C-alpha cells in the first residue's frame, strides 16, 4: 500500500498547517509577554 501521493499531500498539509499555527501562536504569546 505505502504512502500514496495523495496521502503524502494530506500528511504535509495537516502537519504543516498545525505546526505553523502552533509556532505562530507561541511566537505571538512570547512577544506579548515581553511587552
Amino acid at each position: 500500500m505505502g504512502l500514496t501521493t495523495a496521502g503524502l499531500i494530506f500528511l504535509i498539509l495537516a502537519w504543516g498547517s498545525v505546526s505553523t499555527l502552533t509556532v505562530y501562536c507561541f511566537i505571538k504569546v512570547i512577544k506579548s509577554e515581553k511587552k
Partner: protein
Amino acid sequence: MSQNGEREQWGSKIGLILAVAGNAVGLGNFLRFPVQAAQNGGGAFMIPYFIFFLILGIPLMWIEWGIGRYGGRYNHGSAPGMFDVIWNNKLAKYFGTLGLFMSMCILIYYTYVESWTLGFSFFSITKLYFNETTAETMRSFLYSYQGRAIGDHFATMWPAYILMLITFTLNFWVLYKGISKGIEKLAKIALPLLLVFATVLAIRIMFLGTPDPSVPQNSVWNGFGFIWNPNFSLLSDPSIWLAAAGQIFFTLSVGMGTIHAYASYLKPKDDIALSGLTTASTNGFAEVVLGAAIAIPVGVAYFGLHATQEFARAGAYDLGFVSMSLIFQKIPLGQYLGFMWFLLLFFAGITSSVAMGQPVIAFLEDEFGMSRKKAVLSIALVVMIAVQFVVFFQRYGFMNEMDYWAGTFGLVVFALVETVLFMWVFGADKAWAEMNAGGDFQIPRIFFYIMKFVTPVVLFILMIWWTVQTAIPTFLLNGVDPANRPYYWGSRGLMAAIFIGLLFMVKKAWSNHKTEEDMKIEKD
C-alpha cells in the same frame, strides 16, 4: 471567595497556556486520534476534522475561556457561580453543577488509568514484561496487573493499588500547592517533557523503515499510508463527519468545566483570544503530528496492517499497553523507549487530572470560603472513597459506565448548555465583547456567527445522534452480561449520589450567600 478574600493568579501567560494545553493533551491524542483517522477515511478524515476544529473546537475554547474569565471577575472559579452571573435565574447555578459533576467523576477513574501508565513506565525500564512475547500473554499481564483476570504475573492487586495511591497523592499534592506553585509549575515541566519524549519516539519510529525485510508490507510507511491515504468515498457517510466532530470535542477537553476554572484566575483585561487559540493549536500539534506518528505506524511495521487494526478495534488500552509493550521488546533500547512512551502518557494524564480537580476545589474555596488545604483534603477524601469502587469493580464494567455518562455523553450536554447560555441568554454581543476584551488580536467576525448559530446546532445534532446511537442502548444495558448489571447500577448509584450531593452543596452555598447579604444589609 477564599478565606483571605483574594483569589490566586497565574504566574505567567505562558504558564497558563501550558496548563490549559496540558489539560487538553491526554491519552486520546496518542491513542484515540490515529484509530479514528484510520477507521474514518484516513487523510480524507482530516477534511471534516479541520472543519470541526474551526466551527466547534476553537469556538468552544473561546466560549469556555470567556465564561471562565467573566466568572472569575465575580470571584467564581466554577460553573455554578459562572452560570449564575451570566444568567439571572435561580436555576442557572444548578445547570452549572454539571461542570462540577463531570470533572469530578472523570477525575475518580482517570487517576486509576493514569496510574497504569506510571506502572508500565516502571515495568518498561525494569523489563518486567519483557518475557511476554505474544498478544495473549501481554494482555494477560495487563489484565492481571489491573486485577481484571487472575494471572501468573501478579498474585494480588497491591502493585496496582500502591501505584494508584502514588498517582493520587501526586495529583492532590500538586492541587494543594495551588494554581501558580502547583498546577502551573507541573505544566511547565510536564508538557515540554511530554512533547520532547513524543518527538524522540516519532523520529525513532520514522527511521525504523521495514524492520523485517522478508515481510516488506510491514513497514512504517505503510502505517502512515493506513492513517493518511485518503478515501474520499467515505466523506458522503454522515457518521464520518460525526466521528470527526466527536474527536475534536474529546481532544480539546471541552465540556467538563476545567477550562472555565483555569480561566477564572485571569485578570479582567488579560488576553483570551490568543491564549485560547494557542492551547487549541498546541493540542492539535500533539495529536495530528505526534499522536499520528507513533502507535499506528510502529504497529503496522511490526505486526502488519491487519493485526494493528485488530489492536485498534480492541480499544485504546490494547493499542497503548499491549501492542506497544510487545513492540518495545523488539526495538533496540526498547526499555528506554517504553519508559518514555508510558511516562509521556503519564504526563499527559496528570496534567489533565489536576485540571479535573480544580473546579470542585475552586467551588469550595470561592463559595464556602474554605482554605485551599481544607478544600483539597475534602475532595481528596471523597475521591479516595469513590476510587475504591473503580479499582475493585473495574473488571465488572464499573469504570466503563462512569466513562460513558460523565466522560462522553455528559460533555456534549454541558457544552450545549454553556454555549446556549453564553451566546443566547447572556447575549451574543456581550459575549463577543467579553471574549475580545484585552485580546492580543481581534477574533475574526465570522466566529461571532459560528459561535451563535453553527456551534450550538452542531452540538445539538451530536447530542441527538449520540442519544440514539449509544445513550439509549447504554442505558438499557444492551450487551451487558446479566451478572455484571448490579455493578453498572452501582456505578450509576455512585454518580447519582455525587450529583445530588453537589446539587445540595450548591443550594447550601447560595443560601449562605443570601444570609451573608441580609446580615450586611442589616449592618449597613
